[in-house]
């Protein structure tokens, strides 16, 4: 689809206007304008996010939930407003269901500890997929090793989609207690059928957790419409700051789960003999929370809502189609992941060059891509490769940048030929 066609679908969407909101995009790398195609690792930040955090530090900052003074009251208000923003963003039924963590990894670990060790029947299994990020593998392996639970892995198809027959087979004996699965693969771009997964899981007596680290950035997520039980994402991939992630869980589950970390802010009363836990979500937020990061995340969500997730999704879909066509046309390029429903990441390998050399040689030409196993080593084994390169797109990515990638990659191919 051409830029003009996109503009017709979303008249307000102007990628060049969006780019002007990201100060870093004016930077040069090796004397060339930065071409940043690594947004799936971490997105760049719009001025609105930067300014919200600077504004807080310069004018309105103190610790939250404790000071009986003006600055603390105002900062608490700003931080708690972020919780409202996240609740609206996910269409969560209640703001009390939003728990702030350090990142998505910590959010999954929180569930593995507080639900996996604290609530789940140890006779039950956890079911993940073959395309999980390490963040959604290791916490369950640790739970398995500690509690002896079974860890099941659903295979994927050659196109990189969830093997649905396999998925149903693994649920069939009714012994799965929790399905923990990506909502969008960070390697293959595959968007998983969340509603269908949730329904099948519930029918089999299992709860479902979605790792939304990628999905929440690229499309609108409605945890109620999906029928999710747990949903996690991270701030820094959503144009927000590092150091803040989100766990959403149904209130009833959070109530039943014991705390994860202990400390200040998560108790209602303490003596040396015992402590009473605070109400949710504070029960899960020990210690000083990521205050500035919360304020930054609220600004990021406001920014994304202003641009429009639907417009961003449309823009990225057009870019992804274009990138798939451009890169496939290069001799010796192999693309991983051909799912019908997919988001803005394209993972590839060049047959005569190692992914690390490809990434370094693209970097020499001012283009930033990710190379390696993408924190998904088991998936690399399934794909039969040691490492791959990945270009990923965001609201500020242009077709010209993808053209530049294709041309640079063609040069790398000839260089190694």
């Amino acid at each position, binding site marked *: 689809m051409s830029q003009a066609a996109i503009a017709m679908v979303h008249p307000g969407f102007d990628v060049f206007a969006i780019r002007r909101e990201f100060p870093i995009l004016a930077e040069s790398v090796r004397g060339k304008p930065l071409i940043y195609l690594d947004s799936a690792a971490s997105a760049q930040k719009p001025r609105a996010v930067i300014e919200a955090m600077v504004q807080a530090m310069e004018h309105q900052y103190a610790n939250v939930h404790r000071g009986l003074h003006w600055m603390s009251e105002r900062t608490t208000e700003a931080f708690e407003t972020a919780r409202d923003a996240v609740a609206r963003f996910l269409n969560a039924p209640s703001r009390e269901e939003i728990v702030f963590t350090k990142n998505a990894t910590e959010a999954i670990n929180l569930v593995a500890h507080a639900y996996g060790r604290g609530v789940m029947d140890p006779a039950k299994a956890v079911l993940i997929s073959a395309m999980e990020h390490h963040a959604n593998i290791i916490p369950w392996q640790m739970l398995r090793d500690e509690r002896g639970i079974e860890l099941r892995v659903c295979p994927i198809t050659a196109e990189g989609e969830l093997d649905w027959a396999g998925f149903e087979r693994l649920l069939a004996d009714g012994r799965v207690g929790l399905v923990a699965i990506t909502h969008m693969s960070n390697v293959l771009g595959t968007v998983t059928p969340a509603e269908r997964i949730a329904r099948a899981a519930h029918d089999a007596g299992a709860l479902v957790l979605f790792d939304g680290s990628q999905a929440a950035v690229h499309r609108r997520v409605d945890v109620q419409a999906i029928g999710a039980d747990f949903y996690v994402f991270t701030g820094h991939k959503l144009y927000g700051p590092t150091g803040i992630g989100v766990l959403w869980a149904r209130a009833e589950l959070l109530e039943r789960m014991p705390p994860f970390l202990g400390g200040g802010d998560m108790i209602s009363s303490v003596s040396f003999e015992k402590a009473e836990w605070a109400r949710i979500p504070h029960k899960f937020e020990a210690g000083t929370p990521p205050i500035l990061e919360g304020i930054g995340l609220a600004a990021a969500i406001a920014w994304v809502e202003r641009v429009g997730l639907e417009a961003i999704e449309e823009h990225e879909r057009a870019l992804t189609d274009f990138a798939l066509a451009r890169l496939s046309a290069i001799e010796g390029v192999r693309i991983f992941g051909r799912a019908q429903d997919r988001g803005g990441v394209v993972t590839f390998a060049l047959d005569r060059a*190692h992914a*690390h050399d490809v990434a370094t040689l693209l970097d020499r030409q001012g283009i930033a891509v990710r190379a390696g196993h993408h924190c998904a080593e088991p998936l690399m084994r399934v794909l039969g490769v040691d490492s791959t390169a990945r270009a990923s797109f965001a609201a500020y990515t242009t077709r010209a940048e993808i053209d530049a990638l294709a041309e640079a990659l063609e040069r790398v191919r000839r*260089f190694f030929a």
Partner: protein
Amino acid sequence: MTDAFADLRDLYQEVILDHGRHPRNFRRLGPPARHAKGDNPMCGDRVEVWVRLEEGERIAEAAFEGRGCAISIASASLMTETVRGKSAKQARALADAFRTLVRTGRCPMCGGVHAEDLERLRPLSGVAEYPSRVKCATLAWHALEAALAGEATATSA
């Protein structure tokens, strides 16, 4: 003729491309050669190094097998050539000098006893600009040192 790849060539010099494509001494050595594996879990690079010592100390032959990026394969290949004929002690000193070279891009020992060898290894010095790639260049050297020390494995640090 102007080089269409001048911007790429400063890091990937011809010698690196050549040894990356056609690694020398790419084979196993049988017993009693000493042997160690090197593994870089960050990028999946993997090498195995064999050294055959004669008269106790001197390296009569070094060989390797492995898979990885052009930098790691070229580095291993060049290493097997440069350590031949060295004593274990000399090889360790060369490994140290090489590590300094690829970590800093500078070559303080280039005027010393290993001047000629270091000059051959100098094309790899460009990786100093990429701290994440330095390990690719040093992996085989770590494995060599492990083999000389009689250890089975080395992890590029």
